[in-house]
């Protein structure tokens, strides 16, 4: 056992620079968010502060209209994830199970769309949404996020679907199941881990997206969290840094905690899905 302990100590020593880089912004965020306003700018900068002000969060919530932005972000992320999954699952199933003309070309096309940055397309997308009459409407974000995520979700789902043995569905057909029935009772339950992973990926993409949200949404009632927080910084005479930081803490930490907790179940789910 001591050698095992030594080993893990060495691994952690190697990992520690990375850990510091990742945790540093969170630390700054946190200590700024909870200190009193007049201790924001002291020279030289200090980690410590005189008073722990949880009240900053409550103040921020009201002043920045945080609740509404949170709702908008949830709305866009959840709906775009659902839309992307609903459309990707049949596409991925077809890619992994059927032979059809142009399958290779379709795959290449999916990959190619991933090589383009959304920023390049932002102008075109904006004009498209103008034509649809959807500017300043959260649904425009739902559509574009789902569209941008689909290439990845299809690719990801397809590679997992291919690991689910065909025999299982064939056995179900012989047992008397229709195609739809075998899909619902046999195939999809086994594909849950892959669907969960892609859903998380898609959700986080929507949650963090900034450029498209900034472009499409005009009125502050419809701002998503990143845009709302940005609007607290950009174009202001006086930036309330402790509120900005309280906002970023609330926008990032809960999501990170929820997903690291979910991940435990995901891994268990993958182990359950194993056939042999």
């Amino acid at each position, binding site marked *: 056992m001591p050698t095992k302990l030594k080993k893990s100590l060495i691994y952690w020593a190697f990992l520690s620079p990375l850990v510091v880089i990742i945790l540093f912004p969170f630390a700054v965020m946190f200590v700024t968010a909870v200190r009193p306003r007049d201790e924001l700018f002291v020279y030289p900068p200090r980690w410590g502060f005189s008073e722990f002000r949880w009240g900053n969060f409550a103040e921020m919530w009201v002043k920045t209209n945080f609740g509404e932005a949170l709702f908008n972000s949830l709305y866009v992320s959840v709906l775009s994830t659902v839309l992307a999954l609903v459309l990707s699952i049949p596409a991925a199933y077809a890619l992994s199970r059927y032979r059809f003309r142009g399958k290779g070309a379709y795959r290449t096309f999916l990959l190619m769309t991933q090589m383009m940055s959304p920023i390049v397309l932002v102008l075109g997308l904006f004009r498209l949404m103008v034509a649809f009459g959807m500017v300043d409407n959260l649904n425009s974000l739902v559509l574009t996020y789902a569209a941008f995520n689909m290439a990845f979700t299809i690719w990801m789902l397809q590679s997992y679907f291919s690991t689910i043995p065909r025999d299982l569905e064939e056995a179900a*057909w012989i047992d008397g199941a229709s195609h739809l029935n075998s899909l619902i009772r046999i195939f999809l339950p086994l594909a849950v881990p892959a669907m969960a992973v892609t859903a998380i990926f898609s959700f986080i993409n929507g949650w963090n997206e900034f450029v498209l949200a900034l472009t499409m949404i005009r009125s502050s009632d419809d701002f998503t969290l990143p845009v709302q927080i940005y609007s607290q910084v950009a174009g202001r005479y006086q930036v309330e840094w402790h509120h900005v930081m309280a906002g970023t803490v609330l926008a990032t930490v809960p999501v990170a905690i929820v997903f690291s907790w979910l991940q435990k179940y995901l891994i268990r789910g993958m182990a359950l899905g194993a056939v042999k």
Partner: protein
Amino acid sequence: MASVKIRNVEKSYGSLKVIHGVDIDVEDHEFVVLVGPSGCGKSTLLRMIAGLETISGGDILIGDKVVNDIPPRDRDIAMVFQNYALYPHMSIFDNMGFSLKLRKRPRSEIEEKVLEAADILNLRPYLGRSPGQLSGGQRQRVAMGRALVRDARVFLFDEPLSNLDAKLRVVMRTEIKALHQRLQTTSVYVTHDQIEAMTMADRIVVMNAGRVEQIGAPLDLYDSPANLFVAGFLGSPSMNFIKGRFRRDGGRAHVFCDDGTALPVPAVSDAANDQPVVVGIRPEHLCLAKDGAGVAATVDVVEPTGANIELFVELAGERVCAVFGERHPFRPGEKIALTWKLEKVHLFDSNSGDRI
């Protein structure tokens, strides 16, 4: 229960033809084994009966009804897959009851049928477990159980024992045969193991490269194989083949090998003098000759198997295997003489490979 008729069935994948017009009649209650080397199209044929592959030509009839365009779920068949294909997210009970559940049978009936099948297969203690928690042999029995609860008209098996160890394979072989004797369900069983075929089948279908070589009862095929392929495929150790030319003199006949050795053979009327033939003799039909008679041979390798001694000798320039029940102390290099009963000798035409 029902008969299965396969009428001139063909299968192509694109331009690649893998089944070339196969005709097989499986009678009601019969246990038919499809056997052949790897890649000969056994699984493909079985999957066409199941409806999992489309049929490129010909007809398949189950119970006198053409099923070419009927989907698997309406064919009323049950199938045991090579890797069992148990549903990993369901309990053993649910695995076995799935087909009844799909047919919307009442809970009490499902329970009764599953328990009945579980008792036959000794699976009662495992009904609450998931497939991942069972050993290979237990999974195999669950796969059987899933077929049993169905009362299907035809059972299809695709190499169900090939993932088991040798000992368990022999046990399950007997169990499947006993089960068939009890239930009498028409069965088509695919294997590449000729011993499984010999021991289990009412009739064997020997396939090779997408064609049927011979159909018949196991011992008929063993005793009078239609051609070199069937002769070499059935039996272990397999039949010895020695090439030569047929020569008749009076009421007797010999086959002369290239090195001049003369092998006594039956004086069949269908063979012409000097016709190139292949002599086939099973290892167990070779005996030690007494008093300087017989054909000379040199002992190469001696392999005692416990029950028998397998002897590899050099005879007429070919390596020949002989099996003896009695424990004779052979030594490598020893000169011996072998003889055989004429009626045990098979003659095949060298060119066509057909039996003469």
